[in-house]
């Protein structure tokens, strides 16, 4: 048993068909549970009032926006090294999802920022680097769309993903240097004294789990779609020859 078995599209389709209902139900349960608990059964913050509850969407979306890019980086590397098509298609499938999470993080942040900071947008390092991440997602997807030959597209987007990762990290630290932050630092780390209080922490954990599962569900779903689209292309090519 090795993970590379799933590089076989047939094996991948079988396993994902089995797993998909489970992760779907689990992610719906986690999201519903976490969001309902968070929105209706936690107290208002003494300073922020009920706006604090946007944390249940904002934080998990922001985490997954970055993790989606990391996942694309890993699958791109696997494609470059081992040339498994499922891996390249998974990277392609993850990009729009990651972009949507980035957008959700930006929009929920703006909605929270308006009453709290008194502005929809501030050129804060974290906000700016998220906007740049959004641009990276756009460029990556545009390159996939622009190239006709699927293997060439997979190769070039993988190279772009690797170079882009380096520059994304560079940009993250460059904007730190460029402007002082308004955004608070990490408040969920495990080793820090000062964290969000437990009342918000537990529903937030469930929401994060829900977003991770949602991401897995969507990636599986979209990768299956991509594999089917690839099969249809192959069938059509065969029809033309016959």
């Amino acid at each position, binding site marked *: 048993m090795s993970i590379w078995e799933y590089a076989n599209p047939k094996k991948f389709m079988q396993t994902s068909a089995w797993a998909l209902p489970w992760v779907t139900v689990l992610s719906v349960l986690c999201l519903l549970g976490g969001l309902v608990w968070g929105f209706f059964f936690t107290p208002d913050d003494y300073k922020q009032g009920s706006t604090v509850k946007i944390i249940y969407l904002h934080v998990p979306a922001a985490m997954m926006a970055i993790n989606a890019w990391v996942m694309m980086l890993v699958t791109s590397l696997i494609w470059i090294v081992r040339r498994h098509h499922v891996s390249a298609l998974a990277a392609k499938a993850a990009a729009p999802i990651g972009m949507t999470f980035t957008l959700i993080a930006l929009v929920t942040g703006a909605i929270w920022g308006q009453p709290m900071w008194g502005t929809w947008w501030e050129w804060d390092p974290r906000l700016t680097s998220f906007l740049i991440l959004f641009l990276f997602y756009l460029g990556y997807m545009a*390159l996939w769309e*622009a190239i006709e030959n699927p293997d060439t597209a997979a190769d070039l987007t993988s190279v772009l993903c690797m*170079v882009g990762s380096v520059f994304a990290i560079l*940009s993250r630290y460059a*904007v730190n240097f460029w402007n002082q932050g308004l955004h608070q630092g990490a408040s969920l780390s495990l080793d820090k004294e000062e964290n969000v209080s437990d009342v918000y922490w537990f529903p937030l954990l469930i929401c994060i789990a829900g977003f991770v599962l949602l991401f897995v569900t969507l990636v599986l779903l979209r990768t299956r779609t991509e594999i089917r689209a690839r099969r249809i292309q192959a069938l059509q090519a065969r029809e033309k020859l016959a």
Partner: protein
Amino acid sequence: MIALLVRDLRLAMRAGGGFGLGLAFFLLVTVLVPLGVGPEGATLAKIAPGILWVGALLACLLSLDRVFALDFEDGSLDLLATAPIPLEGVVAVKSAAHWIVTGLPLTLIAPVLAVLLHLPEGGYLWLVVSLALGTPALSVIGTFGAALTVGLKRGGLLLSLLVLPLYVPTLIFGAEVVKRGAEGMAIATPLLLLAGITAGAAALLPFASAAAIRINLR
């Protein structure tokens, strides 16, 4: 490699090479911005470092699609790929040629245009230094973008979309150097970071660009 460099430079200088286009664009940007924001010297002086850097960056972007496109169309890129020098070297020479044709003239003309924008006195030296150090990075990164999009019919817009996010760190540090220089503050930190980006990009990106060209020529 020197022969290739000379060839590229000749092609760029002679008719149809679009040599002056980037410079003209740079000039236009610095003329249009005061028309847009108003002629107050204080305002202009404040935004001058940023405008000059953004203008140089966009002017650089303008000529990027020509780095490989013509060679790809007439087939000389295939010859270069099979030539005895490594493709990484070809790519490095191409970006060097691009820099000599766009980055270097931009650096030289920038102080003249800075006068139009009332750049404070302390800024001129650092404007030239930062552009001289930073524009090679723009050319190298841009060559990578050009290598990715070389086979595409409508690569121009896509090229900007791919390359501009990659330009962010260079732009930030470059403009920061000029801003600090103009205000008479210490410039060592952003200057070193800018030089670091240029050195790192020049050392590593030719490999990525060469890989992209090999994929495109396959």
